[in-house]
């Protein structure tokens, strides 16, 4: 497994627009290496967009995002390093160090589970295929899916698919993990198995950002809770501060509705 303790993430004055619509309106977050941040907030508050900006799936219009010590920084100009705007290939390298788990799993339907898992480490990182299959089987064992290695995604439940998607991201030894509502597309009885894998396997030794509606889960797993609304951070603090004793009315109203 990865020996790194996770790289810090520094987001400053981040602005993101879709056309005329301001989706993120000056976001500042500082995450020390290895810490987990839970992002909560109503739909349309910009929390998904926030994590998508971090691995540059969404270009930004202002501010900066720095992940780790690699020197690469996301700005309105794209991904920069030492003042130079990086090309497609370098952006791919930047993304490779950041693991992402999507709401809709996005497994590759034409590949088996093990094919999904080894595709990027072998193809992108040029690691040895046999070694990666061993490593993949080991990780599949840890999420209780070793017997599904040769199965196609279509034959798996949502919870199983999401666990495979987490393993697929972990295979890259990411320094940072991003979770974009990882259980929102799941039947309620399947969320537990996925949350367990996130807590016990995925966030260990990494810096993580989890966008979620599962407040109880966020409380257990996060070092910091960020409550967002209307493209701004309304309130941030420890789970006890934000979830149990929110200071802002907006936060109180949201948490009151969720419970």
């Amino acid at each position, binding site marked *: 497994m990865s020996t790194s303790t996770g790289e810090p993430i520094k987001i400053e004055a981040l602005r993101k627009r879709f056309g005329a619509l301001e989706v993120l309106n000056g976001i500042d977050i500082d995450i020390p290496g290895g810490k987990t941040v839970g992002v909560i907030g109503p*739909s349309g508050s910009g929390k998904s967009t926030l994590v998508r900006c971090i*691995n540059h*799936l969404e270009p930004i219009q202002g501010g900066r995002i720095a992940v780790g010590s690699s020197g690469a920084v996301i700005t309105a100009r794209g991904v920069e390093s030492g003042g130079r705007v990086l090309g*497609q*290939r370098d952006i*791919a*390298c930047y*993304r*490779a*160090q*950041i*693991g*992402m788990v*999507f*709401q*809709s*799993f*996005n*497994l*590759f*339907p*034409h590949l*088996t589970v093990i094919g999904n898992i080894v*595709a*990027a480490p072998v*193809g*992108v*990182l040029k690691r040895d295929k046999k070694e990666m299959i061993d490593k993949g089987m080991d990780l599949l064992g840890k999420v209780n899916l070793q017997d599904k290695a040769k*199965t*196609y*995604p*279509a*034959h798996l*439940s*949502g919870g199983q698919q999401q666990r495979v*998607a987490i393993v*697929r*991201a972990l295979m*890259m030894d990411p320094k940072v993990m991003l979770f974009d*509502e990882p259980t*929102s*597309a*799941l039947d309620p009885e399947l969320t537990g198995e996925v949350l367990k894998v996130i807590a016990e396997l995925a966030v260990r030794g990494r810096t993580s950002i989890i966008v979620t509606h599962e407040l109880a889960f966020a409380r257990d797993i996060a070092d910091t809770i960020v409550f967002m609304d209307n493209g701004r951070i309304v309130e941030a603090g420890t789970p006890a501060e934000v979830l149990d004793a929110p200071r802002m009315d907006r936060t109180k109203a949201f948490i009151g509705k969720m419970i």
Partner: protein
Amino acid sequence: MGLDRLGRLLWEYRDALLSGIWVTIELAFIAMLIAMVVGLVACFGSLSRSRIVSAPAILFIEFCRNTPILVQLVWVHFAWPELLGLKFTAWTSAMIALALQSSGYLAEEFRAGIESIDKGQIEASQSLGMTYTRLMAFIVVPQAFIRMIPGILNQFVTCFKSTSIVSIIAVPDLMYQAQLIVTATFLPMPVYTVVALIYFLMVFGVSVGVRHLTRLLPNFGYFTERKEAPAA
């Protein structure tokens, strides 16, 4: 006309008919192969974000799709020698015209297939550090190809039937041979009826064969009903 006379007639002209069938099959297959390659290139050209690349590709595709095959055929055969200084045998001209026609349609077929792939697939590939080329080659195109099979088959059937037009520039395909036999025997009804049946059996055979093949695909575990995630 008795069946025995029809039999004797066909037997007498069996060489002409068989060589015509062969030319038809050859034209259809080779033109289709060329069209697949040209169509794929044109498709990626049309998807390019650079106008300098996409504009000529789109123009090419639209030209191929929006001109009749008969016009393309005579244009290639009689106009290209003067226009481009390229003079071909009738067989080559026929091949080029058929390939042109099909490549336009196939390019559109490919583009639709590629664009039908869920954006999440591209985002997942990108987040795993894949470049555009890699994610196209290993993730998007393989998935799109399976969806394209019916469209490619349709185009093949169209291309196969279009070959019958090449007889007008004296390519000795099945239709051309039929015309020769009619000229020699003055028996249009039986000859053209038999030729229609031969075309039907060949095209129908291909359709059924490929349809059967695509029906085998689910057994590879890809095509089965997928549980869709509820909308967020």
